[in-house]
């Protein structure tokens, strides 16, 4: 019996572990190793160079630009996306006209809103990025022709062509495609909050703003924190949007360069695989710092209800 059990366990685990080891674990470990070499990726010979890649990193202006853009995205993207998500979810669930005997009510048609808001979430990021590349087109794109149509002919920005605007265009696309997910997620969380809580808040004379900040948000905190981590990881990636949509890509003038795309160009265009992996390690460090900060700041007493 015991013998049979272990054979069964080994039989079920061997294939998943083998695949995972070969295609996920070993590349991660190798990446860290290669970051200490001068490997080009084109030939199989390379030398250990110690910390040389990291020294070069330290003096690389483009690298610092990319880090700065990643940090900017990391600060702005979760705040805007989760903020809008919470706002819309609260409107959907509590913003309705009050019916008899109900402390709170959802708006009419909230199901339809949720279906529509979720549209971008099921589309490939490649489709979304292409769509907005056309929408941002300064001559015939949807945005500028809309501006002309409402009489703002003089505004018509260059959008992705303007170094001051390009990164915000990227941010906007990522917000656009992710808000729906959080509306649905937070809505599910909000509908699990007992109605009595809202009734109690109402009897105590709390208005909607207070209800939101003192009842809804604390009870949703766990979900918000999970969302924060998800959005942060997304902000640290943002490869597809930058690679597909921006001028250059990564431009104009490195204004949308991010770590993931810089790594990609170094490894697969410039033949500097060793240096590229050291960029990857830097990205890993930023990710770990971010996760640590969120977990530390977000630690609160868990509320059971």
């Amino acid at each position: 019996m015991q013998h049979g059990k272990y054979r069964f366990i080994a039989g079920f685990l061997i294939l998943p572990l083998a695949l995972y080891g070969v295609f996920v674990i070993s590349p991660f470990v190798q990446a860290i190793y290669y970051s200490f070499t001068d490997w080009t990726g084109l030939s199989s010979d390379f030398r250990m160079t110690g910390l040389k890649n990291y020294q070069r990193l330290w003096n690389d202006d483009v690298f610092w630009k990319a880090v700065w853009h990643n940090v900017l995205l990391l600060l702005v993207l979760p705040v805007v996306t989760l903020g809008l998500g919470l706002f819309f979810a609260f409107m959907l669930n509590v913003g309705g006209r009050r019916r008899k005997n109900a402390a709170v009510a959802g708006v009419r048609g909230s199901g339809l809103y949720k279906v529509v808001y979720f549209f971008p979430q099921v589309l490939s990021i490649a489709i979304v990025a292409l769509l907005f590349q056309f929408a941002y087109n300064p001559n015939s794109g949807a945005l500028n022709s809309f501006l002309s149509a409402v009489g703002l002919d003089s505004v018509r920005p260059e959008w992705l062509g303007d170094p001051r605007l390009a990164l915000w265009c990227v941010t906007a696309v990522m917000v656009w495609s992710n808000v729906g997910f959080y509306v649905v997620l937070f809505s599910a969380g909000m509908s699990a909050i007992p109605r009595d809580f809202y009734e109690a808040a109402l009897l105590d004379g709390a208005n909607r703003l207070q209800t939101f900040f003192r009842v809804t948000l604390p009870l949703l905190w766990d979900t918000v924190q999970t969302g924060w981590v998800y959005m942060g990881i997304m902000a640290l990636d943002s490869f597809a949007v930058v690679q597909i949509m921006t001028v250059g890509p990564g431009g104009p003038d490195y204004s949308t360069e991010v770590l993931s795309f810089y790594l990609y160009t170094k490894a697969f265009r410039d033949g500097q695989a060793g240096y590229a992996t050291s960029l990857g390690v830097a990205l890993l460090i930023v990710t770990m710092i971010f996760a640590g900060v969120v977990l530390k700041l977000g630690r609160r007493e868990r509320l059971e209800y």
Partner: protein
Amino acid sequence: MAVTAEPTGGSGAATPDAGKAARPGTPRESMGREGGVLNVFSHGVLFIWGLMVTLPLLWAVMSAFKTDKEIFTSPWALPHGLHFDAWSRAWSQAHMSEYFLNSVIVVAGSLTGTMLLGSMAAYVLARFEFPGNRFIYFLFVGGMSFPVILALVPLFFVMKNMQLLDTYHGLILVYIAYSLPFTIFFLSGFFRTLPTSVAEAALIDGASHTRTFFQVMLPMAKPGLISVGIFNFLGQWNQYLLPTVLNVGDEDKKLLPQGLVALAVSQGYKGDWSGLFAGLVMAMLPVLAAYVVFQRQVQAGLTAGALK
């Protein structure tokens, strides 16, 4: 808790700061009026965001039916007639049919493999005690939080040495490997919630562990399998990063998302904007249609990991 001595219009059991919110009239009346204004306001903002989501999509659909000249001169006008030639151009000349087929082949293989291997590993890790169980579990689950792009450079050369670059089976194996962390995380949580008595009864009746898994436990785990299956299907169907790096061979071997990007570049050179929009809409509509039909399951599946 310090109760304020402020007269707060009868709401005796007030929290300390309810006093600031006290307004004339009973709370209920003021809420009623506020509710009316708020209702209009909420509908307003909700409707505006709805427009912001749908208008870009509608604009793309409209453009796909226009001529190239119309797209340039009147981007927001309705098309003058339904021009389907862009669609046939995208489908046959611009490889869209091949991209679809490639994606179907790869995702069919990888989804089957992910579900099979993922549920097997999750079951063993959730229901059996053995040395190293926790270590293997965290090894898998830890993979969820690492940036994939870090592994991509060495992965490219691992694939190259194994002659798996630019092949269907190579992509299938990689898709499975990178889908395992979430699948195992989610399903092992699910297997833990299932009652143990049924499996024990099956074992006492003489069923082997393997048979118990396939004929008793898997059917019981069906709701969890559907959620994670939808999650993996969308993730793999929409995957862009992995094929962009690992599938760079022939033009007609590309998967749908990377093929679309290639299409955008090539049709952009030719100035075939309508063909491009047709390709984009062609890729967009099946997923959106499937989503509208199965919206409840899709929403539940995609948010399942974040709601514990």
